C-alpha cells in the first residue's frame, strides 16, 4: 500500500486533445490520395474562374475573322498564343473556356446553395415535426420528382425567358428535393436517438432540437449529396446552354461553346472538343472528390 503512484508508468489515458468528429473525418479525407488530387483539380478550376481576367490570354469576346477556326498550337497553322485554337468567329477557345468556368461554377454553386438551404429546412420540418407538415412537403416532393428534370427546366426557361438568375431558379426549383429527401430520412432516424430525447427531457425547444441537436449530426451526408449533385447541376446548365436556353451569347459558357462547334465538328473538331473536355474534367473531379468525402464523412461507409 505504501507504493507511491508512479505517474510515468500509469496507463496512458485517451489523447488529451479535444478531437471533434469533423476533424477526424477531414484527416481521413486527406489520406485518400485520389480524392485529394480531384479536390485540387476542383480548386484549380475555381481559382481559374475567379481569376479569369488575369489568367485568360485574350478577351473571350474579341473576334478576329483572320483567325476563324485556327487550329490548336501543335497542329499546322496553330500558334502558341492561341493554344487551343479559335472558334468560328476567331475567338480564343482557351480564354472562353476560362471565362466559361465562371458560369458553370457560379451557377453550380448558387443552385446547390439555394437548393440545400431550402432542402434542409423543408426536410427538418418534414422529418421532425411530422403530421400535416410532413404530408404536404412529402407530396410536393413526390410531384416534383415525377417530372423529368431537364424537360421541367426547359419548360421553366421557356416561360421565364433566358438569364442568369432564371437559370438558377429553374434548376433550384427541383434540385431542393434531393437534399430534402436526404435530410428527412436522416432526421427520421436521428429524432429517435436518445440524445434528442434527452434534449426534450431537458426542456429544449423544437428549434433548438432541429438546428442544434439534429442538424449538425446529419450535415455530413447532406454535404456529400450536395457535392455529387453539384456535378449534376453543372451538366444540366451545360445542357440548357447547349439548347440555347442558358446564358445568352456572347457570354462564354461551356454548353453553348459545344453547341457552336457542332456544325463544323469535322473540319474544326477543337471548337467543341475542348469545352466538352472541360465539362468532363470538372464533373469527374467533383464526382471523385465527393466519393472521397462520402467515404470519409458518411458513417455508413466507416468501420
Amino acid at each position: 500500500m505504501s507504493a507511491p503512484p508512479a505517474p510515468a508508468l500509469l496507463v496512458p489515458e485517451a489523447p488529451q486533445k479535444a478531437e471533434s468528429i469533423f476533424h477526424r473525418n477531414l484527416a481521413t479525407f486527406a489520406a485518400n490520395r485520389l480524392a485529394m488530387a480531384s479536390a485540387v483539380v476542383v480548386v484549380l478550376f475555381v481559382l481559374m474562374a475567379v481569376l479569369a481576367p488575369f489568367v485568360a490570354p485574350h478577351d473571350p469576346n474579341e473576334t478576329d475573322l483572320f483567325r476563324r477556326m485556327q487550329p490548336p498550337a501543335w497542329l499546322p497553322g496553330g500558334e502558341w498564343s492561341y493554344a487551343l485554337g479559335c472558334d468560328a468567329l476567331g475567338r480564343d477557345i482557351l480564354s472562353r473556356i476560362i471565362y466559361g468556368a465562371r458560369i458553370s461554377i457560379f451557377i453550380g454553386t448558387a443552385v446547390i446553395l439555394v437548393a440545400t438551404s431550402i432542402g434542409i429546412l423543408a426536410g427538418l420540418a418534414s422529418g421532425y415535426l411530422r403530421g400535416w407538415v410532413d404530408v404536404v412537403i412529402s407530396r410536393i416532393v413526390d410531384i416534383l420528382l415525377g417530372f423529368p428534370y431537364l424537360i421541367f427546366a426547359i419548360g421553366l426557361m421557356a416561360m421565364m425567358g433566358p438569364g442568369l438568375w432564371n437559370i438558377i431558379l429553374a434548376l433550384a426549383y427541383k434540385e431542393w428535393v434531393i437534399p430534402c429527401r436526404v435530410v428527412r430520412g436522416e432526421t427520421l432516424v436521428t429524432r429517435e436517438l436518445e440524445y434528442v430525447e434527452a434534449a426534450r427531457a431537458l426542456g429544449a425547444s423544437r428549434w433548438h432540437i432541429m438546428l442544434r441537436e439534429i442538424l449538425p449530426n446529419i450535415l455530413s451526408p447532406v454535404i456529400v449529396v450536395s457535392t455529387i449533385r453539384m456535378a449534376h447541376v453543372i451538366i444540366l446548365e451545360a445542357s440548357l446552354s447547349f439548347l440555347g436556353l442558358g446564358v445568352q451569347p456572347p457570354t462564354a459558357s461551356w454548353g453553348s461553346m459545344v453547341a457552336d462547334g457542332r456544325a463544323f465538328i469535322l473540319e474544326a473538331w477543337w471548337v467543341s472538343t475542348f469545352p466538352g473536355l472541360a465539362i468532363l474534367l470538372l464533373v469527374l473531379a467533383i464526382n471523385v472528390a465527393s466519393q472521397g468525402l462520402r467515404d470519409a464523412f458518411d458513417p455508413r461507409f466507416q468501420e
Partner: protein
Amino acid sequence: MKTLLKVESLSKHYEGRRGLVGRLTGAPHTVVRAVNDVSFSVERGEILGLIGESGCGKSTLGRAILRLHEPTAGRVMFDSKEVTALDAPALKALRRRMQIIFQDPYASLNPRRTVAQIVGLPLRLHGLASSEAEARAITARICERVGLKANQLDRYPHQFSGGQRQRIGIARALVSNPEFIVCDEPVSALDVSIQAQIIALLLELKREMGLTYLFISHDISVIGYLADRVAVMYLGEIVEMGPVEAILARPRHPYTQSLMSAVPKVEASGRRARIRLTGDLPSPLHPPAGCKFHTRCPLALDICRSTAPLRETVGEGHIAACHRLGEDISLLEDGAA
C-alpha cells in the same frame, strides 16, 4: 415521508398503422398497450425499482411519466402539480425538476457537442446561470462530482469509455438540481466493474442531493441491492409491488418467483432446480385474455384464461394480482432468493 410522484391509471397505447386495404375497409387499428392502467406512487427520497423483461413497457412508463411520450390516459401528479395537464411553458419549467438518465451511453450523448456543451445545456435552457463563466463553473463542478476531470470538459463523447459517458449523462441530468430522476437501465450496458462504480455514484448522489429515483432495470440483483420498494411489470401491467425485503423474502406472484429463480447466482455454485417458464413473452399486439401471464404460468387455471385478476393487498404495502394468491403457493423450493 411525503409523496413526490403519484401515477394514477396511466396508460400508453400505440396505434399500429393500417395498410391501404385496412383503411379502405375500415378495419380497426391494431393497438399495442405498452402501458396499461398503471398506478403507483413514489415517496420523496426513496428508490422505487421497476423490474421487467424487454417489451414489458417499463421504459415506456418512465417516459410517459416525464411526458416524453404523451400518455394515452391517466394522470401523473408531481409534487401536487398535475404533469399530464400542464401546457408547454409550465412543462418546460417542470423539466428542470424531473430528469432522466438513459441506458445507452453511446446514443444518449450528441456526438457533435463537447462535454461542457452537453452538460451545460440545461443551464442555458432554463437560464440557471447568469453568465457563460458561471455556467462553465457550475458545469465543471458537477462534472468533477461525477468523476470527470476538468481538462476533459472540452472533449467529445467518442473520446470517452462507456462508463465515463454514463457519468456525463448523469452530470447532465443533475446539473439543474432536480428532485426526481428516472434511471432507465443506467447500468445495463456497462461492464460489471464499471456497473458497480456507477451504482455507487448514483447512491452517493442520491444521499447528497436528496434525490428520488424511479430505477428501471431488468436485473433483479441490482434492484434488490438498491431499491426501497419494487414494482414488477409484465406486458404493460404491474403484477406485484411492495417493499423490497418483503418481495425478496416472499414473492407472491408466480412471475416474480420465476424471475427470481431464473437469475444465475454466484453464491449458489452448481446446478439448481429452477422454475421453468415455457415459451416466450406473448406479442403485445395480441396479448392473451384474462391474466396476461397465463400462457407461461405453471399454476394457470381455467379462470386465469378468462378473467384478469384484481390487485390484492397481501401485506404491509405489498400488492399482487393473481387468482391463486389465497393458496399461498411458492414455486421457489427454498422460499428465499
